[in-house]
């Protein structure tokens, strides 16, 4: 049914009433600033979430977040362990000569290691390297006293027939 021309005109005018449904004055004063804030926060969020792509489980589900947290905690634990177990650094070695191990004693008399003067020229020490050779004297290879302390057993002489 085609609306009558008059009705159509009135209908248009009725619809024009909706043009008066406007927000209160000043409503748009802050509108563009709010749009700008949204844009800036979106871009900040996008930049902040750049590292997330390296996570094995990316997503918003709580279990994924837990998995990521678990992996993160494991990595942190590994890092701390590695920090505590780290070996002391060994001075650089030029490979020209090998000094004798000083102070080692394999059951014999103490073997004095090379003196710093003897080592001079055999290898070059790194700058700032300070060392001290210690000779541990070994006076005897007897068992230490009291090592096998045991209560005396009652032993009776056997009389053989």
């Amino acid at each position, binding site marked *: 049914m*085609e609306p009558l021309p008059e009705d159509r005109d*009135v*209908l248009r005018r009725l*619809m024009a009433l909706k043009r008066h*449904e406007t*927000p209160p004055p000043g409503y748009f004063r802050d*509108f563009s600033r*709010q*749009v700008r804030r949204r844009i*800036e926060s979106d871009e900040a969020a996008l930049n902040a979430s750049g590292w997330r792509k390296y996570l094995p489980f990316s997503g918003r589900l709580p279990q994924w977040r837990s998995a990521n947290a678990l992996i993160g905690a494991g990595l942190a634990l590994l890092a701390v362990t590695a920090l505590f177990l780290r070996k002391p650094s060994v001075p650089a070695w030029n490979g020209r000569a090998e000094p004798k191990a000083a102070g080692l004693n394999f059951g014999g008399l103490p073997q004095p290691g090379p003196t710093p003067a003897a080592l001079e020229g055999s290898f070059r020490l790194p700058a700032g390297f300070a060392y001290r050779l210690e000779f541990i004297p070994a006076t005897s290879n007897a068992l230490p006293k009291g090592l096998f302390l045991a209560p005396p057993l009652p032993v009776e002489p056997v009389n053989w027939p």
Partner: protein
Amino acid sequence: MSGVIALMEPYAARPSPTQPATDESADRSLVRQAQSGDLNAFDELVVRYQERIYALVYHMTSNHEDANDLAQEAFVKAWKALKNFKGDSSFYTWVYRIAVNHTLNHLKTRRSRTHHISLNDLDFNAEHDPDLVQLISHKNPRRDANLRELGERLNAAMLKLSEEHRTVVTLHDIQGMPHDEIAQILECNPGTVRSRLFYARQQLQAWLSDFLS
């Protein structure tokens, strides 16, 4: 009826709220600056079109909170897509298309939401609009009908329309946009716009019959 109509000025002679009040070349310049990352230039574009985009979304949703959110989101989308804007159409048409599509998506995904009828939203001018005063006092059989009731009826009728029909009525009958421009925005042909408009008016006529006859 005819007396009332005769007293009213022709609809088309009224200044359309969507007539580009701004220079299109200035728009192009601002778009170029915004495309190179100038957020201040984009701010200027937002200020130019914020009221029209807001009104478009509001008439499609009948909800001020939704209109505020959706209009802002439409501008944010426009900013993000601005690098892909080739200038085949005006910025105004392009941003309108973004706002219409964004609002239609919103309406389709949130059909169950209760709409707030904007009973308090008629501005001061409405009460002094001679056309509307005449329409109510002379034409309406229920002479005690007031603007508020009329506004409520209008919004209820608009919300009964499908989203597509409501969009066409909003763009043409409320915002005064020509068929061709609506077709550009909705990416359909003008014939489709006309047929949707025809069907929507038939429905509105039926629902608002007591104001019309």
